[in-house]
């Protein structure tokens, strides 16, 4: 079978969709802390924190352009410690995707099909994503190509329609930094933690056509999503008011719900939800792919495809039963929980690997010719 590759452009789209679907729907920058009207400043600041995180993940990945995290951690730490360590990020994929799947299904059932059981939303999306993963990363990249313009168009169209309302309510953004920098900085914590999604880089880099440029691609994606995030944050807080925006579950969807086109088109949030679904689907499938691919390498399997079915079942079950309700789910995104989680799942393994890499590099310099 041919080697499956995705273009860097497709990676950009995948990262963009993965990050912005969660962010835009859930807007943790607004809802997770008390930054209120200054949330847009938090959004800008979170880019810089996020960039560091991405460099931590991607910087190491591009140093091993032909290997996934599972493979190079074995190289750096030895076979068994490496395998054990790489289980951590693999767990993170499972955890993140199940949380996201649950959020999507919650949005679906609370806003649109209120009488449908939650498991329907989770099940259909999970099933579709699993089939996509089974098809392979190449079709997935192509689907990202296809969905990206649709997604972007919908989001920008919604923002554009919101402009007249935005102008009326711009005073909602004042006063700037009234309560000092504290709340603003607290507001950056969760968004940065959520950038752990870029952990997919560690698995996807060897699949790229130009693995050396992966870091640049990732940073571009981060910058672009951050820009979009700032726009969405400004629009949401201004139109809905900072207090309301911080309290409700899905601020951006509520914003879109309040829009009208002309005199006869309203309730267009179903379109936003549709676009979100497209992006969400890509994100889910990529997480599942990374999980399955990584695990297959830990177990030494030839193909990851055999793992997709069982993993999807576990993942759907986790999404259904892992969280008792939406409010418990929301607590995960409180800075007090999200940050340690990100720390444990992302920073610790990457830190250890960087350390090992540094030591090996130094040792290598002392003993040239060592393997």
């Amino acid at each position, binding site marked *: 079978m041919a080697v499956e590759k995705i273009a860097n452009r497709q990676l950009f789209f995948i990262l963009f969709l993965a990050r912005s679907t969660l962010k835009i729907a859930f807007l943790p920058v607004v809802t997770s802390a008390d930054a209120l009207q200054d949330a847009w400043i938090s959004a800008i600041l979170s880019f810089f924190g996020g960039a560091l995180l991405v460099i931590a993940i991607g910087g190491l990945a591009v140093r091993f352009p032909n290997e996934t995290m599972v493979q190079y951690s074995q190289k750096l730490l030895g076979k068994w410690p490496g395998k054990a360590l790489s289980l951590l990020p693999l767990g993170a994929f499972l955890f993140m995707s199940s949380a996201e799947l649950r959020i999507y299904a919650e949005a679906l059932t609370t806003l649109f099909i209120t009488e449908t059981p939650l498991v329907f939303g989770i099940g259909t*999306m999970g099933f*579709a994503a699993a089939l996509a993963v089974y*098809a392979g990363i190449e079709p997935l*990249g192509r689907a990202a*190509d296809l969905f990206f313009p649709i997604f972007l168009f919908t989001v920008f169209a919604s923002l554009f329609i919101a402009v007249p309302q935005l102008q009326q309510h711009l005073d909602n953004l004042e006063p700037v930094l009234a309560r000092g920098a504290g709340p603003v900085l607290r507001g950056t914590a969760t968004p940065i933690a959520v950038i752990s999604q870029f952990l997919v880089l560690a698995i996807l880099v060897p699949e790229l056509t130009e693995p050396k440029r992966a870091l640049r691609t990732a940073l571009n994606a981060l910058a672009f999503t951050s820009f979009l995030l700032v726009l969405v944050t400004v629009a949401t807080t201004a139109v809905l008011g900072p207090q309301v925006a911080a309290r409700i579950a899905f601020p951006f969807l509520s914003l879109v719900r309040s829009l009208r086109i002309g005199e006869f*088109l309203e309730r267009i949030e*179903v379109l936003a939800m549709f676009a979100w679904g497209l992006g969400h689907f890509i994100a889910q499938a990529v997480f599942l792919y990374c999980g399955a691919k990584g695990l297959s390498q830990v177990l030494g399997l030839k193909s990851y495809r055999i793992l997709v079915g069982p993993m999807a079942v576990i993942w759907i079950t986790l999404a259904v039963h892992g969280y008792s309700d939406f409010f418990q789910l929301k607590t995960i995104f409180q800075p007090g929980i999200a940050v340690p989680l990100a720390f444990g799942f992302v920073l610790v393994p990457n830190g250890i690997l960087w350390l090992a890499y540094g030591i090996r590099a130094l040792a290598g310099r002392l003993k040239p010719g060592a393997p």
Partner: protein
Amino acid sequence: MLERHAGPSYDLAVRRFKAGDKAPAALVRLDGLTEAKVVEEILRTLMVDSRLLKEPERAGQIAAVALEELLTASEVREADNISALFAGLAAGKAALLFNGYPKALLCDAKGFMTRAITEPDAEKTLRGPREGFVESLRINTSLIRRRIRIPQLWMESLTVGELTKTEVVFAYIKGLAREKLVREVRDRLRRIKIDSVLESGYVEDFIADTPYTVFPLTLRTERPDKVAAYLLQGRVAIFVDGTLQTLIVPVELSVLMQAPDDYYEPPPIGSLIRLLRYVSLLISLLLPGFYVAVINFHQELLPTTLLLRITASREGVPFPVIAEVLLLDALFEILREAGVRLPAAIGPAISIVGALILGDAAIRAGMVSPAVVIVIALTAIAGFTAPAFSLGISFRILRFTYTIMGAVFGLFGVQFIILLTVMHLCSLRSFGYPYLNPLAPLIWQDMKDNLVRTWWWGMRERPKLLGQREPQRIPPGQAPYEGKDPGEGEEEG
């Protein structure tokens, strides 16, 4: 001996004569496949002209002499066994047998009736040539040769079908089509082992990348201008003798959406027509599903007055909306299929009964609501805008799934099945080339001829995945007024 093989076939005509005065010989042909004049010419050569030769020949020599000096037929071949002889006879050749000479001489005397070149029935255009392929391979390939007059247009021939011995030809432009693609086509055609090939569909089944799809992985066309255009992009055309449907590989979804008119009309018009087709295709796929989903689950999406209208029209309809939609959709499919089979003479009568009377009566009887009739009628008409008929069919099949998903799960059911469809399309390949190219994978430079098309002077490069052996199609700098002052020419006029 010949009759032992051919049996009492009445059309096997044997003419015995003496060549060069004394050598006994026979001319064998299948009546109806040969031209009488050509046969007479051959006989005259051997019976009359050979007497002019000075030396009296022996039988073996007269055959050699005939081959080299006498026969004026444009193509003469030797056949040394009986099956080659029959293959020749079936291809419209006249076989000359000489007493004591071990081989038969096959002279080209082909002349059988073919249909005249007419306008293709299945693919009509307003603008552009009206020529269509016919059932004869030679005429079809000649139609291409007339359009592409370079020696680099290569046509390779092979025989497929144990019993039918059908000639299959694949054509490509040497140096433009990728060698890998040509090799792949050749390999896939050679692998075919089948007893009969009566239509290009037989071949298509064997060479498709995957059988598990409703989407067509080859383009079937009966328009020579279309074939020529795709050959010039670096694709390969497969001709099968006895059919007018020529196959083009590889194809993409966007290729199946292209009609010749797009390229002959000015770009703004061509682009709009093409966009319209994409929109209609989406309508034909999605509209019933959306309608059912919205009526069942998402009534808030409709403006209130429209909703009231629809609800009022549904008053007293005994079926749920999904049953209505499926019923009418099935009814339409029956009408369509009947329309294809009907003799032309009674076609209009049936369509009046079918479409007008049935539809009208169904509404008056209160069995279906007018809104559903509108939806299905629009859907049905929209489905026929697809230039490739095979693509229209695949979307119609999918539409039923969409309708059912919309009825059961609402808009998110529709979204679910859209995701599955897109993933399926993304994973499809035609001869190894991605099916959704250039949309996915996204190739910006090929966007010039995808959803819309740009001016011809703007299509400077051939499609990236296919024609990049000779990337440049049109030299730059040919846009009107490019590099010149626009006012210059006007002053003189």
